[in-house]
């Protein structure tokens, strides 16, 4: 009897918590298509709120493009730096190796806002302020500790024999990297790529500070601004449609790459 009671209370507790966690997500999807006063979806269900997003200011497509461009560029920068760096830290000895590795991890210790103030001024000096490339470089900086750490342990986990046999066949270190090592570390590459994409796609404070032109805004900043305009009245319907547009890629990536999420968190746990 006691196990049955235990089992029932387990499902009541777990189930009601699941309802609490899912309810806001389901609500935002519903609210983005449901009819409401003071939105572009007056009668019946439909995509009027999405239509008003398409026409808002520079247009949804422009913001989607900006966000995608920044995210893809951040992933590319992060992967390039962490592949070369991870390979160097895992397989070579050179002067200043430990210092450089610790310095890279130390980025985690410095608050975002502390660096954004001087970066705002520096990027202005080198002509990269109000530029999506400059923004990607700054976003890459914050991915670097996790990415370099992850790629270092990925390269270290590859057996040395594979590399040595290729060396005997006359391959240089670069040939070994591109023809053998990259295939051996692809789960690490996917994890690093996934995390840097999501971080860049969702970041708010860096684009808010570093990018000021309306037509260069990324999605989170554009949707947050949309909310403050339109003559003081907030278009809640369009806001929730914007939330859905921002959330969809994240949910799809989660569905496709669930395993890599957990892998990323586990390496986080090792790090601590």
């Amino acid at each position, binding site marked *: 009897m006691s196990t049955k009671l235990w089992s029932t209370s387990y499902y009541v507790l777990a189930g009601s918590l699941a309802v609490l966690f*899912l309810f806001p997500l389901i609500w935002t999807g519903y609210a983005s298509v449901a009819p409401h006063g003071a939105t572009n979806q007056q009668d019946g269900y439909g995509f009027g709120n999405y239509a008003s997003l398409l026409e808002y200011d520079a247009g949804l497509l422009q913001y989607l493009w900006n966000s995608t461009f920044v995210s893809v560029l951040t992933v590319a920068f992060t992967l390039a730096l962490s592949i070369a760096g991870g390979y160097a830290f895992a397989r070579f000895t050179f002067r200043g190796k430990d210092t450089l590795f610790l310095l890279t991890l130390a980025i985690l210790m410095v608050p975002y*806002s502390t660096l954004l*103030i*001087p970066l705002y001024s520096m990027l202005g000096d080198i002509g990269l302020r109000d530029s999506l490339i400059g923004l990607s470089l700054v976003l*890459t900086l914050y991915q670097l500790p996790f990415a370099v750490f992850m790629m270092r342990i990925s390269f270290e986990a590859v057996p040395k024999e594979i590399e040595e046999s290729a060396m005997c066949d006359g391959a240089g270190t670069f040939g070994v990297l591109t023809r053998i090592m990259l295939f051996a570390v692809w789960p690490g590459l996917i994890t690093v790529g996934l995390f840097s994409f999501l971080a860049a796609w969702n970041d708010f*404070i860096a684009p808010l500070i570093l990018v000021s032109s309306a037509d260069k805004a990324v999605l989170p900043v554009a949707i947050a601004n949309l909310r403050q305009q339109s003559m003081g009245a907030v278009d809640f319907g369009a806001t929730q449609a914007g939330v859905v547009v*921002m959330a969809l890629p994240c949910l799809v990536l989660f569905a496709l790459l669930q395993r890599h999420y957990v892998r990323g968190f586990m390496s986080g746990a090792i790090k601590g």
Partner: protein
Amino acid sequence: MRHSRKLAGALYAAPVAVFVLVFFVAPLLLVGRMSASDWPLLAGDRGINLPQNYEGIADNPLFWPAVGFTLKYTGIVVVILIGLSLLLAVIVADNRRGSGFFRSAYFLPTTLGLASASLLFFGFYSPAIGPLDPLLEWVGLEPVSWLGTPNAALWSTVALIVWKFAGFFMIILLVGLQAIPPDVYEAARLDGANRWQSFWHVTVPLLRPALGLVLILSVTGSLLAFDQFFILTKGGPDNSTVTVVQLIYREAFQRFDLGAAAAISVVVLAALLVLNIVQFRALRRDA
């Protein structure tokens, strides 16, 4: 051969080294210099302004309230987040039918960005479109102004943050739970411990490293809170929910004083370094 391998290693590390120097070390030095200079947003560097920038911090009427609010918010968030994510981890670690579904359900909010989640709850709490007031009326209660008073705004933001991050910390604790060998529980059961006793005296102590990581991440994250307050409460009502990072943003981009903003940034950095060292030391000693 050895020599050329050293050179190759240095070459592979060079991009990271250059990047870290340009985008991390240089800004860190620059923020120090800015904090000692008169540096308006548009005019740029106009010479030394020491120690006025630092003296000005204490005179800023928003500084101490912001520090107090940030600490209060951090305390509340950390306690609730750790308690709830531990409960969630224990629920999904149980190998029953449906535990995989529960794990995904609790984790899904984590996949959203913080800004998206804040915008979602901005609508969720609004009287215009939010579902909460109709629900309250349905059960016969008065509608609530979810962001209208300082206390309501604080707790509404806490709810948003707990919703968004509990699944993330659940996964870290779950990994820790799964690392505990089953025979420890068996031994506790043979010694006559019930479920509660074995939870408090076996699970929690063995979970210490994972709990420590969750503690450090949630403390640091809450102390640096920005997006949620910038979007959800805009620091209001009456500046009651202004956090320290929001204050830095206001000094720099609304009062156009980068010197003052840099000075607060340096203070925050120093405080955070001290706090992290203390936390690491405390966890090391316990372990």
